[in-house]
């Protein structure tokens, strides 16, 4: 068993800028690179995808006007929020940080809305061709995680077209900056967080049973189970169930569907987190002939968590911990991870607590969590080829 991590001891300075808002600054390494990450909460009625296009365009425009010579900016919609990543040479650090506050301070213009509309349509077109992304988007929608990614509602654009531009403003929840050790900040970052309400909704769960839907030549099984929030008692066991099921190379799904049955090359599962909710997502590509049996194998495996060997739990824990540590080995990875856990309200100390609790999970705990959250009648799933 690996020793317990101490993420809280990482050289990350955390400043609470207000309720629900966090700013983190970390300095590590000598690579002259600035990594900026921010999470913007989006009003629940607003599709996050087109808003992310507007945010990206504004960032690029602001950085160009500020004279930041080269930069990479990405804005990605995720579960009713927008995740912004910006990188530039460290010499531009203070220029970049100085132009951030104004980016979302003005209402949207008609041109921006039109431009976002085009981008939105193209994104949706791509999404419609990408079966796995489409299944995930519909699963998040079924789980009540907002319409930002939900294909069925979002593709209609009704909610998008009918909203006044002022409703599209987003609220920064967490900002993270990782810079090389020698870099000196000239400004106080907390000033960059907007003084607006916390719009992030607590989702209303809609427990829609799995449907049987034809989905073209490539058959996929997609299933989900809504779980406890990260600060609830059963969360560590629920999290470990997700890891054991399909979160590593010798997971239950890899063993059952790939090695034993030979039906699927890379079945996987992941525990998705939002501030107030979690979702166990499972996907496996299988031939049409095997869809129903594969689905039953997945459900059986989920419901049979109590029979897990303690050794398998220890392996899953070590793999999970290792992935987080390795993911934080770069300045970019550190920025992304810190920002993600700040946005969720977990923070690095909370991450230590989660891993400490996960290290103590027993097969009995898995069984209790499965009884509560992972029953067959609790499965949700958007598409299952008949």
């Amino acid at each position, binding site marked *: 068993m*690996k020793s317990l991590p101490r993420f809280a001891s*990482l050289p990350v300075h955390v400043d609470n800028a207000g309720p629900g808002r966090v700013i983190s600054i970390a300095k*590590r*390494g*000598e*690579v*002259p*690179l600035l990594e900026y990450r921010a999470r913007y909460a989006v009003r629940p009625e607003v599709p996050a995808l087109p808003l992310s296009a507007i945010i990206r365009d504004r960032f690029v425009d602001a950085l160009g006007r500020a004279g930041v*010579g*080269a*930069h*990479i900016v990405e804005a990605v919609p995720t579960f009713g929020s927008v995740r912004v990543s910006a*990188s*530039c*040479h460290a010499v531009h650090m203070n220029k970049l940080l100085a132009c951030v506050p104004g980016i979302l301070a003005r209402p949207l213009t008609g041109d921006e809305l039109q431009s976002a509309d085009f981008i939105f349509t193209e994104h949706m077109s791509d999404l419609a061709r990408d079966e796995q992304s489409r299944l995930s988007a519909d699963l998040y929608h079924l789980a009540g995680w907002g319409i930002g990614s939900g294909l069925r509602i979002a593709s209609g654009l009704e909610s998008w077209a009918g909203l006044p531009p002022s409703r599209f403003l987003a609220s920064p929840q967490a900002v993270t900056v990782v810079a090389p050790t020698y870099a000196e900040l000239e400004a106080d970052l907390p000033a960059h967080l907007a003084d607006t309400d916390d719009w992030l909704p607590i989702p209303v769960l809609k427990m829609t049973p799995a449907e049987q839907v034809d989905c073209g030549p490539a058959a996929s099984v997609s299933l989900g189970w809504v779980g406890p929030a990260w600060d609830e008692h059963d969360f560590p066991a629920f999290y470990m169930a997700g890891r054991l099921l399909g979160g*590593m*190379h*010798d997971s239950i799904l890899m063993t059952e569907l790939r090695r034993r049955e030979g039906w699927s090359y890379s079945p996987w599962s992941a525990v998705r987190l939002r501030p107030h909710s979690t979702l166990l997502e499972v996907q496996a590509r299988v031939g049409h002939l095997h869809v129903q049996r594969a689905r039953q194998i997945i459900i059986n495996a989920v419901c049979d968590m109590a029979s897990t060997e303690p050794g398998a739990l220890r*392996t899953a824990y*070590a*793999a*999970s*911990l*290792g*992935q*987080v*540590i*390795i993911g*934080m*080995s*770069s*300045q*970019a990875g*550190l920025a992304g991870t810190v920002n993600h856990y700040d946005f969720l309200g977990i923070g690095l100390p909370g991450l230590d607590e989660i891993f400490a609790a996960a290290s103590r999970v027993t097969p009995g705990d898995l069984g209790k969590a499965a009884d509560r959250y992972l029953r067959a009648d609790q499965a949700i799933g958007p598409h299952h080829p008949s």
Partner: protein
Amino acid sequence: LDDLRLGNGLRIIVDHRSAGGAVAVALVVGVGFRSETAFSSGLAHLCEHLSCGSDLGTQILAHGGFTNAVTYSDCTVFYSVGLADDLSLHIAHHQARFHEPTITPEIVAHEIEVVTAEVDAAVNGPGMGAFPWFWLPAATWDDHHLGHNGYGDTQSLRSMSMDVISGFWREKYTPSNCLLVVSGDVVPSEVLSLIGVPVTGPGGMPSAQCRPVAPVRQSPTLVRNAPPGIHASAVVWQAPDPADTRRFAATIVLAELMANPDGGILDQAVPHGREVGSYVGIFGNPFDVGSPVPWVAEASFGDPSGADSFRQHAVKCLVGVACGGTVQDADLLRVVDQLRLSALRSEDNLLTHALTLGTRTMLHHPESGPPPLDLMLSAVTMRDVRDAATFLLSQPEVVMSYGPAE
């Protein structure tokens, strides 16, 4: 960097850097597609597969790490990333490459099946992505060792004797033909202690192992068959020797100036809506191939006549750059800054950094190790870019058309 030579001939570079408790290891073996003769096509890749079966790799995965391998034109790289606490596991995992794998007809037959599936998925199938990179060497060079199909022919692979396969492995997989890069939260003494072989001196090779420069093929447009729906053209020149750092960096910048999302010279020259690309190296990476290195302009269209039209566009663009006036100072600054940022992000990623450091040292700068790419790029001037275009135009170009069979 600590760059050392061990008693068994292995060169080792220990690159200590702050990495949050992680370590990346790359073992670069001096064998690739270009090491093969007419009778051993595909052996380098097959030997990579045969050398991957270690239980230690499973342990690395079980601790959240990752390990894999890839065969390039002039080297084969085995790599892993994981926790610094597991350094001994990673070192043992890579040292195991020096133990001859079990080579039996059954094991070889199984691996040939795996290789066939891999080639079908990644080369013959949609994964190839419509661009003819796999055929570029064959289109570019007449010499067998430079231009043959490095994945080999399944039939000829199956007909090889176990002695031939073992002999190839024994000749190439020796410590003195390898470079081990260890990067991350490690100290050299710990790494050396784990390897357990004494240091005999500095790591640099006494002289660069550059291959003789072979002129590109001088032939009319070469036509290759492609799956339905795929059309592509490529025009290939030979890039300058990577050891000439300044000129080589200028050709990388030139490729970016020709085609990039913000409106490259070639993007603007071809008909609207046609996708073009421009890069240095066989797989689009200037650092995974030794000299001779191709410089490529490619387009997502082109029957044979379309390919020739694309060649004319590409030549015209290069002539424009060589004569000055096509590239503005602001364009050059923007592109150099973008490439430098991309280089920094690559350096920030521990595994990518170890891989690039290893391949650049092995293939381009065996004596003293590679200069930082960020600095190489920042030194490129407008005059260097013009000279690079002139250098390319001073050689014959190869034109390739890739489309559905008649």
